[in-house]
């Protein structure tokens, strides 16, 4: 028997009682509130109820310790860092822990959002207390069980590396698991003093490496079941189009094709295997009613965005009199920054496997939002949410794409399985992924700034034009009052720079278009950091002040940002000479509770921008696993650099002009710079690390290019003028 296997302790698995109205979740937590929960939780141990430890941890009599993850592993390393939190308090060797994704159930709801989900770089800070408490509870129960068995006082016992020790007696956790399972759970537990930490802060290797280097790791696409069929879906070539009619005869003639069924998103070809399904889809004839989406054209849209950027929008932040300060100023810098639509293009294309029976529905998929998928599948099948079993596989990358309010690909797969009356894996091709949305919105920033006599900005007037990623979703209720999607302006409206600028204003022009848009690694920061950090750099140069020094002056009251900036500058040798043909650029940005500065070293070769080295400093509070942080900085930089140098989604006649990795270009190995990561030592509560590495890289590179060539590139992807 294991602690978890005790039937009395399985209530947590019972029901997802969340009603539709309960789904008020989002990746966006207003900056002020972001740490509210985390900050309140540890203060009074009696206040928040302790986690149901048995939902998160199993200790089997053979000594196997299994950690259940409330969040999804998509590369970001929580498969290792969450077990580390338990291991710290449990006194158990983390490298010996087994790890599983948890089922979908209320016990695993995000501690701040009230739904089971992974995103917003929230996992570490939101679980920092809960997973440690789980370890501490289990340890207390094991100690109690040992004390009873040995007839000693619990206070006479200590724990070490998977055993309880009392005097010269030593009992392994496995030997105590059955007894511990019968004991009442303590009302409170004390967590270790940080000075006693042995696991937290130790560079720890990934626990998921073995299965990811021998081909056995199971991603959604790898799920195999008896009688499983595979579907691909023909979707409208433009957004919003509907099926008028279709002719399935040629598709059905393809060997291996079993069925052709209509679903809300299009027409699904269901076959024995992927190859037959794809060939069947090629042969399928669909007549589409394209609708208004067929007029979509990004060139025309951009012209419209630029017009809107010159007009007044909704005020997201304001102090003093920005227009007045600009009118009075001798020197005004007036510029526009442009960011394109971007696909997430996770390496594993979207897919979900669905099996429906009379009283249950099983879904295997890599998802960032289990609760949403569970509710969507329940609504479609008419089952109760707790009858829908979500089996989270490894995610072949997420970057936000596997977290949609519409549960789009899972809903579609449930429709396909229902219509086909079979167990079906619905697979998106890469072309479907590149052309099918969701995208990071296209964004225009117009900024006018006045230089004061000291060279610092005396006025800042800023308008952002963007589609909202939350409009039209349940998350919209979060900003019903203001009409301002906070994720469209984050990183700008709340920029620390503005605190140092007496007259400032940030406005939003909310654009509506039939293009599905979504959070893309670092969300609003993916474009606001580009605009803010390039503009500050332009002002520094206009004022004739060194860009690092200029930022230090503006950030005089921002010790954490400044410390990250200073560390990156020092490690990069900011003032040291470079070989001819090279230059450095800097950017520093706060996002998701962490502070990141990057110095990029670039050259131009044959008209192409080459980035040779990136020195990155991060203050993410307590560094739970320094190896994860380093890896995530490398990853965030590569992701952002690919976008900065080469990625864009464009539309003409409603059609996406890109289709696969040949024309939707992402970073490749030869273009990966040498990345050096430095972690600012900190005892602050943890911040995020999955996303904060991404925002600073594009501006750091653009600023370096400006320093090298004098060309100010204000549009991503960055392209040098001949």
């Amino acid at each position: 028997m294991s602690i978890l296997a005790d039937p009395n302790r399985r209530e947590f698995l019972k029901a997802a009682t969340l009603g539709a109205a309960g789904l008020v979740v989002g990746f966006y937590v207003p900056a002020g509130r972001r740490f509210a929960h985390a900050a309140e939780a540890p203060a009074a141990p009696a206040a928040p109820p302790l986690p149901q430890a048995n939902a998160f941890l199993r200790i089997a009599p053979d000594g196997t310790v299994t950690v259940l993850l409330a969040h999804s592993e998509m590369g970001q390393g929580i498969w290792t860092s969450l077990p580390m939190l338990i291991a710290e308090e449990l006194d158990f060797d983390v490298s010996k822990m087994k790890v599983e994704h948890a089922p979908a159930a209320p016990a695993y709801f995000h501690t701040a959002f009230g739904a089971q989900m992974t995103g917003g770089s929230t996992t570490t800070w939101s679980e920092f207390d809960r997973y440690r408490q789980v370890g501490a509870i289990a340890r207390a129960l094991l100690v109690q069980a040992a004390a009873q068995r040995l007839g000693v006082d619990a206070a006479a016992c200590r724990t070490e590396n998977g055993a309880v020790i009392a005097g010269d007696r030593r009992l392994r956790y496995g030997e105590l698991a059955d007894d511990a399972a019968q004991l009442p759970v303590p009302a409170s537990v004390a967590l270790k003093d940080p000075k006693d930490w042995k696991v937290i802060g130790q560079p720890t290797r990934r626990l998921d490496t073995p299965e990811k280097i021998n081909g056995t790791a199971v991603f959604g696409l790898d799920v195999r079941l008896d009688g499983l069929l595979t579907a691909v879906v023909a979707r409208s070539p433009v957004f919003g189009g509907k099926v008028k009619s279709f002719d399935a005869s040629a598709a059905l003639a393809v060997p291996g094709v079993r069925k052709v069924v209509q679903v809300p998103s299009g027409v699904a070809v269901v076959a024995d295997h992927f190859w037959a399904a794809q060939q069947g889809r090629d042969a399928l004839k669909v007549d589409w009613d394209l609708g208004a989406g067929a007029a979509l054209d990004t060139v025309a849209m951009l012209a419209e965005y630029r017009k809107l950027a010159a007009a007044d929008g909704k005020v997201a932040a304001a102090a003093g009199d920005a227009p007045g300060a600009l009118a009075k100023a001798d020197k005004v810098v007036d510029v526009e920054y442009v960011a394109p639509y971007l696909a997430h293009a996770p390496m594993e294309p979207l897919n979900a496997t669905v099996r429906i029976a009379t009283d249950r529905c099983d879904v295997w998929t890599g998802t960032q939002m289990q609760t949403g998928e569970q509710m969507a599948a329940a609504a479609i099948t008419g089952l109760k949410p707790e009858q829908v079993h979500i089996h989270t596989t490894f995610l072949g990358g997420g970057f936000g794409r596997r977290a949609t309010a519409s549960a789009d690909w899972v809903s579609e797969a449930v429709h396909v399985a229902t219509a086909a009356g079979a167990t079906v894996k619905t697979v998106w091709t890469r072309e479907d992924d590149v052309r099918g949305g969701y995208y990071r919105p296209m964004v225009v920033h117009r900024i006018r700034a006045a230089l004061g006599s000291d060279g610092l900005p005396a006025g800042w007037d800023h308008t952002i034009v963007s589609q909202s990623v939350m409009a039209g979703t349940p998350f919209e209720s979060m900003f019903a009052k203001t009409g301002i999607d906070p994720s469209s302006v984050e990183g700008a409206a709340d920029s620390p720079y503005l605190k140092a600028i007496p007259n400032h204003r940030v406005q939003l022009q909310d654009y509506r278009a039939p293009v599905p848009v979504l959070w893309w690694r670092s969300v609003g920061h993916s474009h606001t950091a580009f605009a803010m950090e390039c503009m500050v750099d332009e002002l520094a140069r206009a004022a004739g002040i060194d860009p690092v020094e200029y930022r230090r002056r503006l950030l005089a009251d921002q010790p954490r940002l400044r410390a990250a900036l200073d560390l990156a500058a020092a490690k990069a040798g900011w003032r040291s000479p470079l070989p001819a043909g090279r230059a450095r650029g800097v950017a520093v940005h706060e996002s998701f509770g962490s502070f990141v500065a990057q110095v990029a070293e670039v050259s131009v070769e044959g008209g192409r921008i080459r980035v040779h080295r990136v020195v990155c400093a991060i203050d993410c509070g307590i560094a739970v696993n320094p190896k994860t942080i380093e890896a995530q900085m490398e990853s965030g930089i590569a992701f952002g650099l690919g976008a900065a140098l080469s990625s864009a989604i464009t539309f003409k006649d409603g059609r996406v002009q890109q289709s696969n990795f040949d024309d939707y270009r992402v970073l490749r190995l030869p273009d990966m710079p040498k990345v050096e990561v430095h972690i600012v030592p900190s005892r602050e509560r943890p911040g995020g690390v999955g996303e904060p590495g991404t925002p600073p890289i594009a501006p750091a590179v653009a600023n370096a290019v400006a320093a090298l060539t004098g060309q100010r590139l204000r549009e991503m992807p960055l392209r040098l003028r001949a």
Partner: protein
Amino acid sequence: MKLRVNGKDHEVAAPPDMPLLWVLRDLLGLTGTKYGCGVGQCGACLVHVDGKPRRSCMTDVADVAGKSITTIEGLSADASHPVQQAWAEMDVVQCGYCQSGQIMAAAALIAEKTKPTDPEIDAALGRQLCRCGTYQRVRAAVHRAAELNQEQKS
């Protein structure tokens, strides 16, 4: 037709133009080889055919009948291949999805070049995409694998 995969013979009933990738994954159940693009652009599907790297999404199964095919599952029985060892040592993987292809490409490279240079690594792995950006570690791990390979041989 007969297919020799990881040292085992299989009889497969597949149309001759079915890509090797889908034969491996959907007919033989060898899911370690991944689909990332289907058009030869990402390398997630890379396997060895008679020891040479080959993108299985672009390979008609009939073309490799009778040849010796190795997938990630057959690279070693116990992850003891120097590339796998180096990958573990350098903590390369993130989501892991591209890594079968990266590892197979690296294994083919060090079989050919005892001490690959950076430009040789660029040439051999430059089109193995990784959206998680593990490239810096991939490069370092290829160098390390070449070292381990030499140590094991001597």
